[in-house]
């Protein structure tokens, strides 16, 4: 019997329902189907959530999370993990704020190690300077990249497990951020920066023009700066992964690091670059959150942020064992995750219950990943 015939025979085994289910589970578009199905379910049970007002509001939560998740995707692709992505967000947030703040309260920040040198009562180094925001953003991006590159270096050179190294980076940089700011927030940021957090480029209004005055709350932002920034980042990341040699190397290292090394792939450099990219994406997320909250806050990226970021990426279908994943998947995963969070909030569950449900969903996603890997291996000729 030829091998092709034998495989067909294997596929015919099992009830039709089980086969259909297996095909759905193995499909690359699984999370997309799931999100659409979930959305339809929500539309039936919680109609208030599919109103354009709510959807537009939820979309605003998607962009900063997606920026960080894009970075995490790169790391998962090489079969690593980055636990420091939240801490990098916080540190970058603080680093940028220090540069562009226009006033600082001595009582609050006087104890900072930067007081007197980089930070004073009149603010940071570029206080009130027209280029302050731009330079601060640059500082944030570079800070993120360097933090990532540092982790990547130790992981590549000394073969430290990524889990361990990024955990150390998490502890170090979140503490550094708190130390620099003495647990305070650095406010008084220039408008040109804070506009990035919520500025609309295009707004829409749904509904009849019943009153001569349109209620402000009904004017919904459609195209916002965060949207443009994150979408741009996503497109760049996608091109990088699918069209360049670097992208191919990333997948190769994730699928089989040893074989990649034998084939001449510069594995060490790829690892450092991947973590640097993750740091950069974390910095972008930090920029978006800082702009939204109008301050450099060392606590950005803390709390359940890590759970949200890694969870959304895993739900999207990027495999924890490396070599499998796409930026598009991650975007869908983030979308699903935000929808899920919205539903849970709407149900007025306590914060702890919400985290528990999120954790359960992420666990299900991880199990699904393992199941799919196993199914694929079994089907192999």
């Amino acid at each position: 019997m030829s091998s092709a015939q034998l495989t067909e025979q294997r596929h015919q085994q099992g009830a039709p329902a089980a086969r259909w289910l297996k095909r759905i589970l193995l499909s690359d578009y699984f999370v997309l189907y799931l999100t659409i199905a979930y959305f339809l379910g929500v539309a039936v049970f919680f109609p208030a959530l599919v109103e354009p007002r709510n959807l537009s509001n939820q979309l605003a939560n998607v962009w900063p999370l997606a920026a960080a998740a894009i970075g995490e995707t790169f790391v998962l692709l090489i079969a690593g993990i980055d636990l420091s992505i939240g801490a990098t967000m916080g540190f970058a947030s603080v680093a940028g704020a220090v540069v562009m703040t226009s006033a600082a309260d001595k009582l609050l920040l006087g104890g900072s190690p930067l007081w007197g040198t980089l930070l004073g009562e009149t603010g940071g180094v570029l206080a009130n300077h027209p280029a302050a925001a731009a330079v601060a953003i640059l500082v944030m991006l570079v800070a993120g990249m360097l933090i990532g590159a540092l982790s990547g270096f130790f992981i590549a050179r000394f073969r430290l497990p990524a889990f361990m190294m990024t955990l150390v980076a998490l502890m170090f940089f979140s503490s550094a951020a708190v130390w620099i700011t003495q647990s305070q927030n650095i406010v008084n940021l220039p408008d040109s920066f804070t506009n990035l957090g919520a500025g609309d480029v295009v707004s829409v209004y749904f509904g009849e023009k019943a009153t001569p005055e349109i209620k402000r709350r009904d004017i919904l932002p459609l195209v916002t700066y965060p949207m443009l920034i994150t979408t741009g980042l996503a497109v760049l990341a996608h091109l990088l992964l699918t069209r360049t040699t670097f992208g191919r190397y990333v997948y190769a290292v994730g699928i089989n690091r040893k074989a990649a090394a034998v084939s001449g792939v510069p594995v060490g450099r790829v690892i450092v670059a991947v973590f640097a990219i993750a740091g950069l994406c974390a910095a972008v997320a930090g920029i978006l959150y800082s702009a939204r909250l109008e301050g450099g806050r060392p606590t950005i990226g803390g709390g359940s942020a890590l759970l949200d970021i890694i969870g959304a990426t895993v739900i999207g279908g990027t495999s924890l064992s490396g070599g499998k994943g796409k930026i598009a998947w991650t975007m869908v995963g983030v979308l699903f995750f935000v929808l899920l969070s919205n539903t849970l909030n709407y149900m007025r569950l306590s914060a702890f219950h919400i985290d528990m449900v999120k954790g359960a969903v992420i666990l299900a996603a991880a199990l699904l990943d393992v199941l799919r890997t196993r199914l694929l291996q079994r089907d192999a000729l």
Partner: protein
Amino acid sequence: MTAALSLAEISKSYFGVPALTGISFDLEPGRLLGLVGQNGAGKSTLMNVLGGVVAADAGQMQLFGRPYAPRRPADAKANGIAFIHQELNLFGNLTIAENIFVADFPRRRGLVDWSSARSRAAKLLQMVGLAMPPDTLVELLSPGERQLVEVAKGLSVEPQLVIFDEPTTSLTARETTQLFALIRRLKSEGTTIVYISHNLGDVLALADDIAVLREGQLVAQGRATDFDIGKMIKLMIGRDIDALFPPRHSASPGAVLLQAQGVTRRGAVDNVSLSVRAGEIVGIFGLMGAGRTELARLIFGLDTMDSGQLALPDGVPRHRVTPQMAIAAGLAFVTEDRRQEGLLMNAPIADNLVLASLREFASGPGLVDDTASLAAAREMARRLSIEARDIAVQPAKTLSGGNQQRVVLGKWLMVDPRLIILDEPTRGIDIGARYAIYEMIDQLASAGRGLILISSEIEEVMAMSDRLLVMSEGEIVAEFQRSAWSRELILRAAFREAEAA
């Protein structure tokens, strides 16, 4: 007399590829059956079925007249079958006694009875002739000593049937003699034995009966006295010995492509110097653990040398090499383990083919020209007759072993190397595909490339090499020209028997 072991129509396939087809034989109790066959003929699969590691797809087995269908190794053990594996399953960080009883420690009142474990272990060690205290950590033992521990472990269940799978690969001559004495003693006590080995001479010396497997089928069976080595080889291969290897078109060697001087790495390779010229095939033969793969890794830059110098095909002498440097200088390395190091199993064949030469297809900021790279991949697949439906989509793991090896070769040919290192290139590949690979090797040499052929199969290395280096314990102990070698000389050198004699 009831057969000790009786097999009827045992069949087994892996991923649709048949490994065993309709195996039937009877084994009388108290006799030793020698089981021989090429790599991939099905010996290990058959033993795995017997030992309960995998389940047969079809057929029945009987053990001393009772139906026997093990579902896991523990079942085999419970039925009195001891399976002494080719791959050692020992835990380095545990002691000998702990390893022997790892699955079932002697207990006293619910707790482990260490004194009983130790004394029983000591007795077993005495039986196999290993003079070590049972508390020795296994990681301190040599490969040969570990093999004896594995034997002791098997004997700990006082089995009625013992299966030895390639037990002498790591043993010294003295240890081998001791093992044979043990085997004869077991036989005299009534234990039934199955002995699998590539060493046909040993098999003939020990066996009462012989069975020959070829491509998953039992092609011959009978009293050992009816067989001789030539007959066994012919049955194993299925054709005349002469037709196993293609004719070798040796050309006169050209420029020196590789010059290694004093390459040393502690614990692996000791002061190795060699050179390879264009158009010549240099074989490297040796036992397991001789350091051949380690040497190849050093030449290619996967490991760092402690001292020594390497002049690669570009002529520049170096103390430090990286794989990227090696490839750029014209080297290629077909590794021993294609699954772990040769291929990205889950990636499409085309991706595998272009992996080493990606830079050739990139322009500007690293953008890859997909059309060009895919076209080149298809061309290479055609040249090497890689059988696949669509190489752009099909993952490498769906291919047969022979085709997989072609993909690996294809990948390297795409960087147009001047010197190719081949480490066990035909391992795990069936006869037909092997021949094709030998032909390719011959053609590559004729076209002016240099090749290093590392192999544990003496016939292969004798048929294909122009020059042969023998390694043992990290050193090159002998060099033979084609005109002046013989199987015996080579083997003696590998076993360092010249010194012992």
